[in-house]
C-alpha cells in the first residue's frame, strides 16, 4: 500500500509554502498599488493564480477521465477524482476572491456577467461530480459515470476563458505583458508559480490518499 510520503513530496510541500509566503510578501509589500484601483488591485495576485490552478485541475481531470475510459485502470479514476476535488477548492477560492474584488470595483458582490456565470456553472458541475461519486458504491460504475461527467464538465473550461472575448462583459479581458507594469508582472508570475507548486504538492498527497482509500475499500470487500 502507498503508506509512505516520499521525501521529494515533503520537500515540494515546504518549497511551496515558502514560495507562497514570499509571493504574499511581494504582492502586499513590495509591489506598488495600482494607479486607478489602489490597493484592491492586489487581489489580482491571488485571484488569477487560483483560477489558473482551477483550470489546470479540471484539465487533468479531463485527461485522466479519458485515460480511464480507454484503459479501465482505477488509478486514472483516482487521479481524476483527486484533481476534480482540488479544482473545486481553487475555483471556489477564485470565485470568492473575484467577489471580494467586485464589491469595491463594480459596487456589487455578484452579477450575472458571462464570465462569472460560466465560472459558477463550472464550479457547480464539478460539485455535482463529487456528489455523484458519493452516491455510487460500485467502483467500476462510479468511475465510468464520473469520467463521463468529468469530460462533459471540462467543455465549460474554454467557454469560461473565452467568455470575455465572445460577449460584452463587466469582467476585464486577460492582461498581457504590454498592459502590466514589470513589478506587477513579476508579482503575478510569482503568484502563479507558488500556487502551481502548492497544487502539485496537494495533488501528490490527495492522490496517495485516494489510492489508500481505494485499496482499503477493495480489502474490505475481499474480507467480507
Amino acid at each position, binding site marked *: 500500500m502507498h503508506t509512505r510520503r516520499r521525501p521529494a513530496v515533503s520537500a515540494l510541500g515546504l518549497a511551496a509554502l515558502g514560495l507562497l509566503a514570499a509571493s504574499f510578501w511581494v504582492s502586499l509589500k513590495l509591489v506598488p*498599488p495600482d494607479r486607478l484601483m489602489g490597493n484592491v488591485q492586489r487581489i489580482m495576485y491571488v485571484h488569477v493564480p487560483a483560477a489558473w490552478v482551477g483550470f489546470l485541475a479540471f484539465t487533468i481531470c479531463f485527461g485522466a477521465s479519458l485515460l480511464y475510459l480507454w484503459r479501465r485502470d482505477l488509478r486514472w479514476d483516482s487521479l481524476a477524482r483527486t484533481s476534480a476535488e482540488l479544482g473545486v477548492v481553487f475555483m471556489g477560492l477564485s470565485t470568492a476572491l473575484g467577489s471580494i474584488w467586485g464589491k469595491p470595483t463594480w459596487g456589487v458582490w455578484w452579477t450575472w456577467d458571462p464570465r462569472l456565470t460560466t465560472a459558477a456553472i463550472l464550479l457547480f458541475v464539478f460539485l455535482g461530480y463529487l456528489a455523484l461519486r458519493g452516491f455510487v458504491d460500485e467502483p467500476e460504475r462510479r468511475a465510468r459515470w464520473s469520467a463521463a461527467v468529468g469530460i462533459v464538465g471540462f467543455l465549460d473550461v474554454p467557454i469560461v476563458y473565452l467568455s470575455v472575448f465572445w460577449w460584452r462583459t463587466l469582467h476585464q479581458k486577460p492582461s498581457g505583458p504590454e498592459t502590466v507594469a514589470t513589478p506587477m508582472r513579476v508579482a503575478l508570475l510569482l503568484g502563479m508559480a507558488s500556487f502551481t507548486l502548492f497544487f502539485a504538492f496537494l495533488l501528490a498527497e*490527495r492522490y496517495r490518499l485516494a489510492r489508500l482509500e481505494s485499496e*482499503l475499500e477493495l480489502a474490505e470487500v475481499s474480507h467480507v
Partner: protein
Amino acid sequence: MFESISYASAAYLLTALVLLLYGASLLRRLGRAERNARAMTERSADSPDSSGDRRHRSTRGRSSVPHTEWTSEEVPHA
C-alpha cells in the same frame, strides 16, 4: 484607500485560510488512512490465512457462495 486595503487584506486572509485548512485537513485524513492501512496489514499478517497454506490463500477474497449466485439467471424470483 483604507477601504480598498481592507478588501485586499480580507482576500489574502481568505486565501491563506483556505489553503492552510485544506492542506491540514488533507494531511489529517491521510494520517488516518495510513493508520487504517497499517492496521489492515497487521490483521492480514495475524490471520490464519497468512500461515502459508497456498490452497487456502488462493480462495481469499471470495465468498463461500457459488459464483453462479451472482448471475441474474440464478436470482430466485420472489
